[in-house]
């Protein structure tokens, strides 16, 4: 039964994709009337002007361009033009650094706050205010104070991905079932041992959920941050191609950003499954 469900779902997915590509293809066909212009003038103009080509590329254009990128993902034509593989590697490295720093700060801190009801109440308003701030709002402040654009980008990832982890850790630690803690107390388990053997495993699923939300946010932030600081990364690639008004390349970048984001999310999802326990 489940296998046939999976099969049917897969079929529906493929049909949806085909329908989407078909509509896309039809919608971006040249429709505008071809205006007559002197050949000398036409030579100086782009295809959108001369052949009434849609400003939006069709799926075939995107596919051809994507193949071109996939054939040589690691070329390096100087500081402003590198292959997509290199750009993605830069972005993932930045996200990884900022995210790991956030993990190192958020989980211990969240643990401490979560164990003290007083602190968790007192700090809550600050966290709530800082949480919804957009990465682009942090950027000028970071650039101005840190005075280094690559560190600024990492800082912005750090500051944006820390909140969901912190909140989830606090919540997870604070809501460990009282019975379990009481049992541990009765057995005269020490505070440190109690934290690691009782609270941590009990709160782990919630913490991992926080980490999963955070990695998604970090990946969202990197594109915006790199568009601003430039130089390297997939965000810079989007900006550079936008500069050239090359929508084809922008679409390819969007696709890749989506795929990498999904992979990161899946990795964290697997970790979450590993620590989940039946109650």
């Amino acid at each position, binding site marked *: 039964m489940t296998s046939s469900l999976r099969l049917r779902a897969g079929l529906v997915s493929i049909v949806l994709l085909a329908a989407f590509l078909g509509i896309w293809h039809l919608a971006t066909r040249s429709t505008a009337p071809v205006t007559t212009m002197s050949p000398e003038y036409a030579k100086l103009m782009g295809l959108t002007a001369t052949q009434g080509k849609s400003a939006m590329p069709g799926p075939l254009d995107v596919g051809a361009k994507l193949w071109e990128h996939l054939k040589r993902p690691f070329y390096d034509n100087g*500081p402003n033009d590198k292959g997509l593989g290199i750009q993605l590697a830069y972005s993932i490295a930045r996200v990884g650094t900022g995210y790991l720093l956030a993990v190192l700060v958020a989980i211990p801190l969240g643990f401490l706050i979560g164990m003290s009801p007083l602190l968790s109440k007192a700090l809550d308003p600050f966290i709530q205010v800082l949480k919804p701030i957009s990465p682009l709002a942090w950027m000028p402040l970071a650039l101005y104070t840190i005075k280094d654009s690559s560190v600024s980008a990492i800082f912005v990832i750090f500051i944006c991905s820390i909140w969901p982890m912190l909140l989830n850790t606090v919540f997870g630690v604070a809501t460990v079932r009282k019975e379990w803690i009481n049992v541990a107390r009765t057995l005269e388990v020490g505070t440190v041992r109690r934290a690691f053997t009782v609270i941590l495993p009990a709160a782990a699923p919630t913490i991992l959920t926080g980490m999963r939300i955070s990695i998604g946010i970090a990946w969202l932030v990197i594109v915006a941050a790199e568009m601003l*600081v430039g130089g390297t990364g997939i965000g810079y690639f989007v900006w550079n191609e936008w500069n050239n008004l090359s929508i084809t390349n922008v679409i390819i970048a969007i696709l890749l950003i989506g795929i990498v984001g999904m992979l990161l999310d899946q990795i964290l999802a697997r970790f979450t499954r590993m620590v989940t326990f039946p109650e």
Partner: protein
Amino acid sequence: MSTFDNPFDPDRNLRAGCVCGQHRSAAEHEQATALHCEPVASEEKRYEGVVASAVMRAMFPQDVARRAFLKSVGASTALAVLSQFFPLKTATEVFAQAGAPEKKDLKVGFIPITCATPIIMAAPMGFYAKHGLNVEVVKTAGWAVIRDKTINKEYDAAHMLAPMPIAISLGLGANAIPFAVPAIENINGQGIVLATKHKDKRDPKDWKGLKFAIPFDYSMHNYLLRYYLAEHGLDPDTDVQLRSVPPPEMVANLRADNIDGFLAPDNICQRAIYDGVGFMHLLSKEIWDGHPCCSFAASKEFITSAPNSFAALTRAIVDATAYASKAENRKQIAEAIAPANYINAPVTVLEQVLTGTYADGLGGVKTDPKRVDFDPFPWQSFAVWMLTQMKRWGQIKGDVDYKAVAEQVYLATDTKKLMTEMGLTPPASAYKSFAVMGKNFDPAKPEDYIASFKIRKAS
């Protein structure tokens, strides 16, 4: 005059502006006298020309006197006489070679527009390498970012809009940090582009309520557009909407109908035409022929801490600018700077901008070889004019010491220093008067100039 013209031509006007009085504007005078510089054979010859030009300017501040001198003795005698007083050969040699750079690996930021042509082309065409430098040219997302990265010393020097170093030095929109401009990048090369639907609205008087984009508040684009609108009786602060929009977004916004037009740097103007969304209403050249646009800027700190690197960098830029100023090289340059590593634009678009044979967006092909031109000399009167406009539109309040600021930011360090190194007395004045839309600007009387405008922000 261009720094690369022949200084021994008696008819040559070393200061721009028509001095003979027979023509209404400097441009007309230039056309009438039909002067041009011969393409100089070798680099040494060109340096000789630059140095000789400076010497002539220093010796004869009055064009009339110099002309009389040249006419009475002839150019070759003049050169001989001059060489007696001043060893031109030695000076040329000193100019061409100097101390080893303190720092060889430099980073220079640029914005991907054709204004940055000399800065960009100097990398693929080897001008930096020729002057002993290993320069990485880094594409940057916007003017505010290039400002911050240069202030943060991530870049040693950068491509900036001509008014930006002045604004940074004055602390407008940033902390006050002394910056200097050793060379102007390009002159002319901008344009007013309107959306195709406005093709019958060519009279600016009908533009009330339109929305225009400019690249940055502290830009020649802002000042020129405001000037142009005000001359046609529109108050740019109340009658139209001006928005600061990064250049690549301009074409997208024009297509989406969010703006009605823009005064933008090229290749953006030509790109809008290429994509069929707008037409060229006016080249910025028709507002002020020979106006500066972008500059090559560095912080005073870099200049003092690495003077030789800075001098070598300036030399490379001046060298590249000279190469770019020749029409026959423009096609080759367009191909060199078009790849994704540099400007990242179709070659056709860049070629149209640089060669001046372009589609106007209305079905016609126009030719104007001076659509964009390159001349590095940082006239201080340019800076004074920009300051008058900053004051006119309320960006600066209170009194301004025009001369002091202009001298501090423009030419103050490099050009003077290079000349002193060569045993030269720098020109007593780096001021020239010029006309913007037919109205003369006298750099000696900036306050009167501001007062002469009816439309300006009340201060």
